C-alpha cells in the first residue's frame, strides 16, 4: 500500500509539479482580480450614487425654475421601450424559433438562417442604431420616437431571442415528441402541450436576459428614441400607451446617464442613475435565475 502510493507520487516530475502550482496560482489570482474589480465597481457606484438618490429624484420631472432634478421621464421611457419591444419581439422570436426547430424541413435553409441569426447576435449595436434611423425614423416615417426605438431594439434582440428559444427547444428529448404524435396528437398540439412546457424555463430566461439588454442599451436609443429629459404627455390606458409610443420621444435611463455625465458633467446625478440601473440589472438576473428554477417543475 505504502510502496504503491509512493511510486504514484514519485511519477510526477518536479517540472510537472511546478507547472501545477503555477497554474493554480494563476487561477486564484484571476479569480481574486475579477471579484475585487466587481466589488470596487459596485462599491464605487453605490458610494457616489446613493447620497444623491431620493424619492424626489425618482418620482419627479426635472425643472430648472423649481430647481428640481428628477428621472421620472427616463424611468417611464424605459418602461415603455421595454414593454413595446417585448410585445413585438416575443411572438416574432419565439414563433420563428418554433418554426425553425419544429416545422422547417429544409435543413440547408435552416442552417443558413441559424448562421445569419448567430452573426446578427454578435453585431455591434451602433449598426442597429444606424439602420434604425434610416429604416424606422426616416423611411417608415416614425421620426425620433419611442416606437422607432422599440423597433430598432426588436431588430437587435430578435436574433438572441430566436437563438435562446431554439437552444431550449432542442433540449427537449425527441422521445417526448414521438410519444405525443404516436397518441394521435397533431403537430401544433404536440408543440403546445409537450415541447413548450418542457422548454419554457429556457425561453423565459432568454426573454428576461433580453430585457436586460434592452434596459442596458444606449447607442440604439440615442439615435432612434431621442435624448430629451422632459416628460411628454403620458396618459393612462392602452390606447394612450400606443399613442404615446408614436408621439413621444425621450431618453431612457442609460441615455439619461449619458446626458448627465457627458452633456452636463453632473456626475452626482449620473451615479444616482447608475445605482438605479444596477438595481434593475440585479433584479433581472435574480428573476432569470428564479424563473429558470421555478418553471422546471418536474
Amino acid at each position, binding site marked *: 500500500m505504502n510502496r504503491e502510493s509512493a511510486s504514484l507520487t514519485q511519477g510526477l516530475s518536479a517540472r510537472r509539479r511546478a507547472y501545477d502550482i503555477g497554474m493554480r496560482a494563476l487561477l486564484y489570482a484571476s479569480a481574486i482580480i475579477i471579484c475585487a474589480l466587481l466589488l470596487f465597481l459596485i462599491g464605487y457606484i453605490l458610494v457616489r450614487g446613493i447620497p444623491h438618490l431620493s424619492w424626489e429624484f425618482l418620482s419627479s420631472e426635472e425643472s430648472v425654475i423649481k430647481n428640481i432634478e428628477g428621472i421620472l421621464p427616463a424611468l417611464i421611457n424605459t418602461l415603455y421601450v421595454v414593454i413595446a419591444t417585448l410585445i413585438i419581439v416575443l411572438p416574432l422570436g419565439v414563433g420563428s424559433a418554433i418554426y425553425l426547430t419544429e416545422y422547417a*424541413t429544409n*435543413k440547408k435553409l435552416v442552417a443558413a438562417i441559424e448562421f445569419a441569426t448567430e452573426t446578427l447576435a454578435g453585431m455591434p449595436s451602433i449598426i442597429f442604431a444606424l439602420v434604425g434611423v434610416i429604416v424606422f425614423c426616416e423611411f417608415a416615417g416614425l421620426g425620433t420616437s419611442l416606437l422607432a426605438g422599440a423597433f430598432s431594439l426588436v431588430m437587435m434582440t430578435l436574433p438572441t431571442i430566436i437563438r435562446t428559444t431554439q437552444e431550449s427547444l432542442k433540449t427537449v*428529448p425527441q*422521445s*417526448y*415528441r*414521438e*410519444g*405525443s*404524435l*404516436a*397518441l*394521435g*396528437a*397533431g403537430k401544433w*398540439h404536440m408543440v403546445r*402541450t*409537450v415541447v413548450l*412546457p*418542457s422548454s419554457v424555463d429556457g425561453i423565459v430566461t432568454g426573454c428576461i436576459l433580453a430585457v436586460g439588454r434592452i434596459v442596458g442599451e444606449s447607442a440604439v436609443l440615442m439615435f432612434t428614441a431621442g435624448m430629451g429629459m422632459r416628460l411628454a404627455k403620458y396618459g393612462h390606458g392602452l390606447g394612450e400607451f400606443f399613442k404615446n409610443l408614436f408621439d413621444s420621444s425621450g431618453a431612457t435611463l442609460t441615455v439619461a446617464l449619458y446626458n448627465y455625465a457627458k452633456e452636463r458633467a453632473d456626475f452626482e446625478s449620473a451615479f444616482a442613475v447608475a445605482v438605479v440601473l444596477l438595481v434593475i440589472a440585479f433584479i433581472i438576473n435574480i428573476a432569470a435565475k428564479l424563473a429558470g428554477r421555478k418553471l422546471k*417543475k*418536474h
Partner: protein
Amino acid sequence: MCDNNEKIIIESNKLNLYYGDNHALKDISFRIPSNRITALIGPSGCGKSTFLKTLNRMNDLVPGVKIEGQVMYNGEDIYSKAVDVTRLRRQIGMVFQKANPFPMSIYDNIAYGPRTHGVRNRAKLDEIVERSLRDAAIWEEVKDRLNKSALGLSGGQQQRICIARALAVEPDVLLMDESTSALDPISTSKIEELAMDLKSRYTVIMVTHNMQQALRISDYTAFFLLGELVEYGDTQTMFSKPTDKRTEDYITGRFG
C-alpha cells in the same frame, strides 16, 4: 402465412424502406390477422422496430426516409395522401422500446391522449385513467401518487405507464416494441396476461427478443433477418417445425 379464415386487419405489400442508402426493409409482404397476437422476432438491427413504425407512420418523422410499397389497414392504404395521420395513430397505438413518459404527473400522462381527442369531463377522465392503469397492471403501485411526476418512477413502472397511456385512447391495434424487456418477471407476466385479455378488443403486434414469450402468448410469429421477412406462420408450428433453416437456427439459439 396465417390461417385463411382469419380476418386480416393490416396487410403490407412489397414494402421497402430506406434510411438514406440503408435498405432496412426488403419486400415485406405480410398479412396480420385481427384480434390476434403477432410476435416479431429476429436479431438486433434486422428491422423489427422499423417495420412496426411503418404501421403507424412514425417513420415519417425520420429525415431522409423513403418508403415504397403499400400498407393496408382495414382495406385503406395508410400511405395515401388522403389519410389523416392523427386518426391513423389514434387507432394504431404504440408503446416504444424505451419508456418515454412525459414530464408531467402520472395522471396527466394517462389523460394526455383522451384530452388530445377532446375528453374534458373530469369524471370521465378519472375513469379512463383508473381503467388504463389497472389494465397495465400498475394501478395498485401508483394510485396514491397520481399527481406526482411520472419521471420519478422506476424504469419498469415507466414502461407500464406508457402502456396505460397507449391504452387510454382505446386503439384498435397496439404496437408493442419490446415493451416487457425492462420489466421484472411479475410485471412481465401481468403485461402478457393483459395482452391475452385484450385480444378480444385489440390486435396486438409485439416485438420480442424473448422466444419463450413469443411461444407463450403469440398466435402468429414472424421472423425477420437483415430486413427480410424470412418466415411467418402459426406460432406453434413455427417453433416446432420451422420450414426455413435460418429460422430454426435462430429459435434454437444457434445465432442472433
